[in-house]
């Protein structure tokens, strides 16, 4: 599964004639928690026609220490249609005196194609500066012109964790003849100044203090203020477009980018028909077609011009048997259509962090494409770039988010499958024998579902040696681990992986004179406690939740017995539940049971200490040791 392009959204800055860049002029409140201070971040956009835009960005940033260097953003993207007309950077010392100038010819010019792409026409100009002392200030500005107005620069005045902002300006001049829309998102609670007039958009925000990074905080995107603007009539790499809302946005994409690209050669259609002969169930047919795509194609991406948004034709994919997410999704759609099954090309923001399309504001968004197959109440979603993922499974790459489903009649926002809490189950049953010499041998069966399946299934594609290393790393708490047998039972129909593992180690138990001390929870002991904050600022999130169920029968060495059974533990909290118990099931045999349920949710910062306590208790009971007496 891979992205189809990097929507390079925001490279901000321009035009103000600010003068004093000495470090001493920075307000102390902006230096607190800051690795860098953005002195000025200015974007000036001028749209003179639906296919003519000029953008100037200027970013002046004072780097207080080395860690702030990653915030310089010393790059400018371009492509055959988007041209950089001016580019320059000045470096100032701590007193604000210019010490170096980086001119156009000093920039490095390289291909801006990511590793997953075979070829693309996107390029980038970058500069690199080696500071001899800190702090110092970089004033970087560039201007580009482009006919592409399908996406316009966005304004996101908050910069990054550990970076404060003195002044952020956004200005956009739109020709009177053009109609446009805007959305102010998350503007409440921020001191944003709006100076806009009818044809001139103008926003400003000042003195934004740096924010520390905090564990489990929701992605920046969900709470930062953002200004989005879209033209009603726009242009994209030689293609004109019109969109007012998601319906018309979908309509445009369908008619300009997708229509007639799903035509297949007769031979392929009859091959498909032949493959479906005898299958009557509609879902089975869809599955068969999907499996054909998985078995016969692979992911190769070529991004040229409009090819960043338009799929290569189904006919072409049929010939070469490769494509990117757009090409492969469109190809699957074409194959289904040839067998009378309707499906829809759907644009999504892929990634572990769940980003949705703006429901109430139609704008070019997304970095990936999947296929939606209507199926009464239960839509089927297909990830067409993976040769391995089970039919109808999305994993944490595209789950639980709003996506744009493109139908011939227009666009529609739909929500993908959720995998939450009990869906993400890991069930372990097993036997473990403690040997006289202090080692253990064990037989385990681990079943995983949902997102836990997703992460465990990665082991399947490893080589034998890497599989071994994977498990030694997985149970790195067990010193000197030997893997005696690894067997997989991969049930793709029910989306379940069973890992059957036989393992042993020579040393697990601590000898104390005649007594033995050991941890009954050898295979799933949590050591995770999130960091402590004296004054937490942000809410926190358990993003998907999960359930782990462990039941291990422990055979003790002869002549040893457990003095007193530990009291069973039950902890309930609003974040989830934990249960642990040890019972005697035979003369020298114990049964260890453990259940942990974590509930997904967004929680207020005031509850953070409660969550830490919950994790601390889990850690304590998970790592509890018991003593065996001779």
């Amino acid at each position, binding site marked *: 599964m891979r992205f189809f392009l990097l929507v390079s959204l925001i490279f901000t800055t321009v035009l103000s004639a600010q003068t004093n860049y000495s470090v001493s002029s920075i307000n102390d409140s902006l230096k607190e928690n800051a690795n860098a201070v953005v002195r000025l971040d200015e974007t000036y956009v001028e749209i003179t026609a639906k296919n003519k835009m000029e953008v100037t960005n200027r970013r002046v940033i004072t780097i207080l220490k080395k860690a702030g260097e990653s915030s310089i953003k010393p790059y400018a993207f371009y492509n055959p249609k988007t041209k950089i007309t001016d580019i320059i950077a000045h470096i100032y010392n701590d007193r604000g005196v210019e010490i170096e100038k980086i001119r156009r010819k000093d920039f490095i010019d*390289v291909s801006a194609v990511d590793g997953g792409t075979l070829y693309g026409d996107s390029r980038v100009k970058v500069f690199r500066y*080696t500071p*001899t002392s800190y702090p110092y200030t970089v004033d970087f500005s560039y201007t580009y012109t482009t006919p592409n107005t399908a996406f316009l620069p966005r304004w996101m005045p908050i910069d990054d964790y550990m970076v404060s902002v003195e002044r952020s300006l956004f200005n956009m001049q739109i020709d009177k003849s053009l109609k446009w829309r805007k959305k102010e998102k998350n503007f409440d609670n921020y001191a944003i100044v709006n100076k806009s007039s009818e044809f001139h958009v103008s926003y400003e925000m000042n003195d934004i203090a740096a924010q520390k990074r905090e564990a489990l905080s929701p992605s920046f995107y969900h709470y930062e203020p953002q200004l989005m603007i879209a033209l009603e009539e726009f242009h994209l790499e030689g293609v004109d477009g019109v969109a007012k809302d998601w319906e018309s946005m979908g309509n445009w994409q369908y008619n300009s980018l997708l229509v007639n690209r799903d035509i297949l050669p007769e031979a392929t259609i009859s091959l498909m028909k032949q493959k479906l002969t005898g299958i009557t169930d509609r879902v089975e047919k869809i599955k068969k077609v999907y499996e054909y795509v998985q078995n*016969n194609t692979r992911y190769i991406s070529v991004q040229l011009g409009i090819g960043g948004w338009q799929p290569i034709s189904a006919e072409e994919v049929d010939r*070469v*048997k490769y494509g990117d997410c757009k090409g492969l999704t469109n190809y699957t759609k074409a194959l289904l259509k040839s067998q009378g099954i309707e499906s829809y090309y759907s644009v999504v923001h892929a990634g572990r962090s769940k980003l949705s399309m703006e429901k109430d504001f139609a704008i070019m968004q997304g970095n990936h494409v999947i296929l939606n197959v209507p199926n009464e109440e239960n839509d089927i979603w297909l990830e067409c770039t993976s040769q391995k993922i089970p039919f109808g499974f999305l994993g944490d790459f595209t789950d639980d988010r709003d996506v744009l489903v493109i139908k011939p009649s227009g666009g529609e926002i739909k929500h993908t499958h959720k995998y939450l809490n009990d869906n993400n189950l890991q069930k372990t049953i097993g036997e473990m024998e403690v040997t006289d010499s202090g080692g253990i041998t064990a037989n385990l069966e681990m079943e995983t579902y949902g997102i836990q399946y997703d992460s465990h299934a990665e082991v399947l594609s490893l080589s034998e040696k890497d599989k071994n290393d994977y498990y030694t790393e997985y149970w790195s708490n067990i010193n000197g681990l030997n893997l005696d047998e690894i067997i997989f039972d991969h049930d793709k129909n029910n989306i379940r992986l069973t890992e059957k593992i036989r393992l042993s180690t020579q040393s697990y138990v601590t000898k104390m004179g005649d007594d033995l*001390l050991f941890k009954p929870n050898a295979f799933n002991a949590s050591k995770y406690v999130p960091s402590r904050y004296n004054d937490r600022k942000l809410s926190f999130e358990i993003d998907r939740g999960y359930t782990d169920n462990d039941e291990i029968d422990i055979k003790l060495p002869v002549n040893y017995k457990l003095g007193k059974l530990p009291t069973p533990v039950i902890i309930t909290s609003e974040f989830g539940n934990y249960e642990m118990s040890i019972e005697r099931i035979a003369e020298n045999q114990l049964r260890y049971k453990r259940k942990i349920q974590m509930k997904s949710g967004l929680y207020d910062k005031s509850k953070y200490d409660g969550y830490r306590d919950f994790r601390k208790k889990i*850690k304590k009971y998970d790592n509890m040791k018991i003593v065996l007496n001779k």
Partner: protein
Amino acid sequence: MPYFRVTTIFCALFFYFQSGISQEKPEFGVISKSESEFTSYEKDTEATAVYLYEYGDNYFEIRDDYIYLITKYHAKIKILEKEGFDYTNIEIPLYRSKKRKEKIVNIKAFTHNGEMKHSVKTSEFYNEEVNDKWTQTKFTFPNVKEGSIVEYEYEMQSPFYFNFTGWDFQSDIPKVYSEFNAKIPGNWLYNRSLKGSLDLDVNDADIVKGCFSFPGTKDDSDCESLKYVMKDIPAFKDSEEFMLSSNNYKSKLEFELSEYKSFYGSTDRYTKSWEDVDKEFKTDKDIGSQLRKKNFFEKNVDVSLLTEGDEITRAKNIYEFVKNHFTWNEKYSIWQGNKVKKAFDEKKGNVAEINIALINLLNAAGIKTNMMVMATRKRGLPKKTHPVMNDFNYIVAKVDIDGESYLLDATDKYMPFGMLPFRCLNYYGRVMDFDNNSYWYDIMPEKSNAVMLRAQMIIDPNEEKLTGMFDLINSGYNKVAQDEVLSTVKEESYIEKLEEEISDDFYITSHEKILKYSNEKKITERFNFEIENLIQGDNIYLNPFVIKFFDKNPFVASERNYPVDFGFPMKYQYVVNIKIPDGYQVKSIPENKNFTMPDNGGVLKLNVSDNTSGTLNLFFTFDLNSAHYPNGYYIGLKQIFNEAVKSQNQSLIVFEKI
């Protein structure tokens, strides 16, 4: 000292009348029966793809009034599993200068699926500009499935004779057959060597009379004709942690242009012998002249820096001065474009500029200092058989004072005098002694590198807590690393992190650096701490290893492909005194241990004793006496690390109420 095989193949010409094994070059586009029936590679059943055949030919030819180096390449790769599909994505790098460039003049590519052939269309070969020196031709194959054979062939013409650099026999997938050919007219001389542990199956050199004619010259030149073949070449295994550059182990043929006699009579000599190199350096406009900027430096630094104190004091002062004056721009670029004066003015530069400034200053202070050229660990070990300038990518200063020699590199601000950064711990370099001849010199890493912990603990059963004090002593390379941590991380977060790593019941109450016990190569920190929740019923359980050197074994793989190289020897030591609490007696203590690796490669000792004055003494030491462990030592190394982890994690002292 590790053993690395570097063999020179031929430096003289031999006459062969018959080539060893003759194999007809297969025609492009034709798949033999055995090739199409090939379903798995029995010598490596894990292989996801395999080269069935690979062929390269290199020769010189006049085209459009210019002599080009022509390279022909032909390969057939069988795709065995989906995981091997990536081997069908091909990149061919092409070099260019401002005036000239390498060019692909002919390229063809096919996917074979049984009888079916699918071609790559002309429009599907992409040319990508990587940067101002490199472009690449990229393509992939259509219709690839498990069992496909992908085949491609191209011809490249290059105006750059120095870009004839050799042949990679080994790749990350196995090869059934790989053949390299070259026909080199006598005008060009290339040094050549075979790296890695594999042997050639065919090793032919021949003279072909009058094989190259140049318009206007009377006689045609003779050529040396070469044919080298390897069969059943195993896949090159991935890099592992703690190793020298994998370049040292990969089987490949390396060529380096040493001389070009132009047909108009002039001769361009590149590298030939160290005598030539020495001579070149002395006259060279780049490095040689950069080393003679003594006057500039004399004028630009305080006189006292060069004159005050004895030699060693002056050397140390100059070293400190240069370290602080410059910021390293993280570039090496030792062979060209060095501007020492400019770098000095701007206070930043690459490795060569900074260390040449250092050498200039040391010489200006009358201290005997030479430049040593060497290679970083990542680059690989330079060949000793003959000079290959491309093998070197680093410059340091070699200083001789009172019969002692020191190697200095001023690019790392935390590096003590006489120690080189870890990246430089690559065994040897060549000292360019301009008064005499150059010579090889061994890089001896700092020997005393240690993390040592000395602790005292008192348990108060009434308060239910343990209070203690420990000194953490880092020396050698560990001191350098610790220095960097302490000067970049805030004390508050440093302590928080330490507490979090140790346990929930562990609190550091004070922390200070003890200057009295710290010096250039050693840093001592003192911590006071408390531990809670130790008492369970009538017993007190204590793992005396409150600080762990590492909590898991870095060596988990069942086998190792390459020797382990830590760069330097290492020692971990832990000494604790624990007062037996009043009203308690010792119930159990960890068993004593004593492990040694063969050839004194490593020692591990754990000893707990109950002395008469009411205290327990624990002594633990884990010494890795060598920087380098050949593969035969791997299992022993893994075991001793297991014991080290076990000692730290599973040692338990139990006190019981009397």
